[in-house]
């Protein structure tokens, strides 16, 4: 079975380490916050100017002056700090954020990512995504392995305009956990009940498959 949105988030959360400063993108990445393993502390960075993002507010706590990068009302965790946008991206560009998780339309074997624009169709802008992928060393991309029509999103060359070049090393899809190195995809783990053949079939870029591909456990 392909992973649910929650399971993708749950698997990503296992990559969190105690003391990590983490930026979570909009969509599935946001859900990672719900699965922080017990016994570790992480601090969430929201690029509109908040380090130490808390949970959503109660109706009584809603504050129009306190939102996250997805423009949702949020609260501050204990130990939070507030800063302006230039400071926020100094943190990001300067490589101070330990882990960035974000979505994508496509990634390719050279670590290129396309996530912000479908020409002639969807033009909303890159927001902070280009800064995040250029600034972070440790990035996990979450996305579905293939489109609804079965077209692979793990390609030999991205077909859409790029968000970043050569910056992605790890991809977690609904079918597999994949590492990108030396111009190839490497299959690390598969979703429970998903066969290697199925993953190979839906991966257009070159995929290296080791003899033993462990199944993710939930």
């Amino acid at each position, binding site marked *: 079975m392909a992973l649910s949105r929650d399971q993708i988030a749950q698997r990503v959360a296992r990559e969190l380490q105690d003391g990590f400063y983490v930026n979570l993108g909009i969509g599935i990445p946001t859900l990672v916050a719900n699965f922080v393993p017990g016994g570790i502390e992480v601090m969430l960075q929201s690029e509109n100017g908040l380090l130490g993002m808390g949970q*959503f507010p109660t109706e009584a706590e809603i504050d*129009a002056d306190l*939102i996250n990068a997805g423009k949702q009302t949020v609260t501050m965790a204990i130990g939070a700090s507030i800063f302006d946008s230039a400071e926020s991206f100094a943190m990001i560009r300067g490589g101070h954020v330990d882990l960035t998780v974000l979505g994508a339309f496509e990634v390719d074997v050279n670590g290129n990512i396309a996530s912000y624009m479908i020409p002639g169709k969807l*033009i909303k802008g*890159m927001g902070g995504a280009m800064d995040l992928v250029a600034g972070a060393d440790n990035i996990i991309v979450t996305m579905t392995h293939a489109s609804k029509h079965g077209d692979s999103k793990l390609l030999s060359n991205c077909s859409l305009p790029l*968000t*970043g070049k050569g910056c992605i090393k790890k991809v977690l899809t609904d079918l597999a956990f994949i590492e990108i190195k030396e111009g190839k995809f490497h299959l690390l783990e598969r979703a429970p009940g998903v066969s290697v053949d199925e993953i190979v079939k839906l991966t257009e870029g070159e995929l290296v498959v080791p003899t033993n591909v462990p199944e993710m456990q939930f």
Partner: protein
Amino acid sequence: MAGFNKVVSSYEEAMAGLTDNMTVISGGFGLCGIPENLISEIKRKGTKGLTLVSNNCGVDDFGLGVLLPDRQIKKIVASYVGENAEFERQMMSGELDVELTPQGTLAEKMRAGGAGIPAFYTATGVGTPVAIGKDERQFNGRDYILEEAITGDFAIVKAWKADKYGNLVFRRTARNFNPMAATAGKITVVEVEEIVEPGELNPDEIHTPGIYVNRLIQGTFEKRIEQRTTRPTNNK
């Protein structure tokens, strides 16, 4: 106006001198921390052909989006422009020129503009459509592109509190692009929720010093929320 007192008495006075085809830099992220009354004044004045520099362009009936129906905006420099149907229509039809700029690059362009730095190199955008036509250079084996600073004829800013000298304090994430915008305007106009006497703000806690501020006005704010998300009260 006497000495360092920056307070003006009307929005008309606050935006006096704004004329067609000027560049206006605006603070705000989404609808949070936007100078909503200064935007309304631009709409009322009917100034046209504006180049706007702002992270977003509001929604259809609030924020900078209100300047769209009368075609007051000629060009916008922004990082994210979703959530606005009229914007999308004008962009797709070519009536509106849109320069998509990565959010961190946009913040740094404003910061650099206000700090007298004409351009800077960044890795953001290398190998993407953003890099087209820009100077590329390697430092320590990594590729960077040259991004130019932005300054505006006007900067419009929303702060929480100010003293009459224009020293500013922002609140929560309504700070966002406002401090950088404040530095980058030839004329910087700030609207706030409260104006106090000089000496009442703690100098250690001022976010933007008054030297950047030309005009100051106290307003009342709707502070519309774009994505109202809550958790149940009893859920810890």
